[in-house]
């Protein structure tokens, strides 16, 4: 009996028992859809954590001023004016800090921006040319400010996407004039969207001007934050140490516990978030795997029922010349077809679910082709594995016993 004929026989047997086959397929379907959605949920969460990291910049250290001490009165964190642009320039010195790749000091203030008849209040940052690369941002339109504009304290501004929109500068914004607290600035660029909406602060509603220009306007030389970018993930700790040592030395502090600044690493937050995420994925994946196992046992149960119910048919087929091998193959094909049907339907349900479910929950579900194809293959494998025992039972049936049963 040819393979094609065996497949045909198997499919006919499935078609004869539509209801039963349908329920079996349903068991596998639910398991596969659950696995695909769980994996997708895990990957979606990882992706949003990753995009949150990227929106801040990678391998980032954040230096903030420590609390000020005036006599016995201790101010709140960040209240001291201990960090300066000069500190940032020293940190950029490769000789003292070989593991720091980029330095971006930053000042910030709320200001009202006016463009034509539109006005909008937002955070205006003053920073240096390296801000773009350290914060992991890029320019959508126009250009970032040049070292020359930086040193001459040019009145130029780069806007975030949201800010540009609110000011009505969506079409050809480059070269337009925006008044910031009544000082005219020329728009030279618009940032790309940060791609992250998960941060508390909208990373697209901002304006950036050269730090030198900001100093001229405010008359202050202190900065609120210095962003440091380490050369790689592995040199993050070394960069942290180098920056700490240099700043302690610059500020004339000998006891590290009295430091007037704080350095935090973004990666410590990220690793916590990722591990929580992974635990959740493993847990949900375990539940999905159990439901898949239950589906597989369902296949075995149905196939055993099928063997018992079709004892006469099997006996007759054997009397007419079907070898045990032919009978075994027919039942295995039936079982694996049920698995394949369940796998394909489950994959379809999973893909539809990945589109629909995010509308009801805040989490993103990202379906990977690899996981989907893998799940379908697993479904077929489950059909075969759980079909082996029923198939060999059918193959071993003695034809006379089978024909005798009424």
């Amino acid at each position, binding site marked *: 009996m040819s393979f094609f004929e065996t497949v045909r026989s198997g499919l006919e047997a499935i078609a004869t028992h539509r209801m039963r086959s349908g329920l079996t397929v349903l068991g596998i379907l639910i398991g596969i859809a659950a696995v695909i959605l769980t994996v997708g949920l895990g990957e979606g969460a990882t992706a949003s954590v990753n995009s949150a990291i990227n929106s801040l910049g990678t391998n980032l250290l954040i230096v903030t001023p420590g609390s000020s001490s005036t006599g016995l009165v201790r101010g709140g964190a960040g209240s001291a004016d201990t960090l300066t642009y000069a500190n940032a320039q020293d940190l950029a010195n490769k000789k003292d800090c070989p593991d720091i790749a980029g330095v971006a000091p930053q000042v910030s203030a709320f200001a009202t921006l006016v463009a034509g008849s539109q006005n909008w209040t937002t955070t205006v940052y003053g920073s240096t040319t390296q801000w773009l690369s350290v914060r992991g941002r890029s320019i959508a339109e126009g250009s970032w400010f040049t070292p020359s504009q930086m040193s001459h304290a040019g009145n130029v501004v780069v806007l975030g996407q949201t800010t540009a929109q609110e000011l009505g500068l969506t079409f050809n914004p480059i070269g337009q004039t925006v008044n910031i607290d009544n000082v005219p600035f020329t728009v030279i660029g618009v940032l790309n969207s940060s791609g992250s909406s998960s941060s508390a602060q909208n990373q697209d509603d901002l304006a950036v001007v050269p730090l030198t220009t900001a100093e001229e306007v405010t008359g202050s030389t202190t900065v609120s934050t210095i962003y440091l970018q380490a050369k790689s993930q592995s040199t993050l700790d070394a960069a942290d140490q180098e920056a700490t040592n240099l700043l302690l030395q610059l500020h004339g502090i000998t006891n590290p516990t009295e430091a007037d600044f704080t350095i935090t690493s973004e990666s410590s937050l990220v690793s916590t978030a990722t591990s929580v995420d992974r635990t959740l994925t493993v847990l949900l994946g375990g539940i999905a795997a159990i439901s898949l196992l239950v589906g597989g046992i369902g296949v075995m149960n149905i196939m055993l029922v099928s063997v018992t119910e079709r004892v006469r048919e099997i006996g007759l*087929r*054997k*009397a*007419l*010349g079907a070898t045990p*091998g032919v009978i075994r193959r027919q039942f295995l094909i039936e079982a694996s077809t049920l698995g394949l049907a369940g796998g394909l339907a489950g994959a379809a349900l999973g893909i539809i679910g990945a589109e629909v479910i995010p509308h009801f929950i805040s989490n993103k579900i990202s379906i990977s082709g690899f996981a989907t194809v893998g799940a379908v293959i697993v479904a077929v494998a489950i059909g075969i594995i759980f079909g082996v025992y029923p198939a060999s039972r059918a193959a071993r049936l003695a*034809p*006379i016993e089978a024909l005798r049963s009424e």
Partner: protein
Amino acid sequence: MVAPGPQANSSSSHTGAPGAPLITGPATGLAGRQRTERPVIEFQNVWKTYQSAEPVYALRGVSIKIYAGEYLSIIGPSGSGKSTFMHILGCLDTPTSGRYLLAGSDVSKMDEEALAEVRNRRIGFVFQQFHLLPSLSAWRNVELPLLYAGVGRQERRARAMSALEQVGLANRSSHHPNQLSGGQQQRVAVARALVTEPDVVLADEPTGNLDSHASADVLSMFADMHKAGRTVVLITHENDVAAAAERIMRFRDGKFVDAEETAA
């Protein structure tokens, strides 16, 4: 026709199984006939024992020769062991001891795969309960043995249709068994038995579930087969059914008790 093989004319040969007395089987009733060819079926002192608390002897040293073209009926009461005999004859079961030669080859020692092939090529079954598959149409039922023989689709269809034509059901080829009467179902089963052109057609109570009209119909088909030169073995417990055959063998207590020949 019949394949050459070891000549075993002596019906007293045996394999010396424990508990098997060295008895000679009954005469096979071929007086007056000149047979030059070898028998298509030959049982040599076949025993079948079922092991239970006390061993049950279903066959007690059966010896018989059936020649090609014979129409033989085997009659016996239920419990006489004729069903066991039929199962071994049809290669659905194997003897505990003794030899069974089918077309010259010893099938008593064959494994499952080989027996399946023998059933497929050499034997056509007709059962009391018809045993048609309800999910398949008449011609798809008839083609089943050819499917297992590895015959191509086109040829299967042609041969199945021609077999249905022989039993007068060509116009019902796409009907399912539940759309056919009992007599028609049994005729489909006869077509299925004929489709492989087997050495032996083996019918087990073929009229047991049929009314007298349908019974006569089926018996006349066997008579036609016999006229066409086919070997037919019919097992029954009814005397008038058995009488249709050319030779009648009586079965009782696990062996043949006597032999007679009818004029038919």
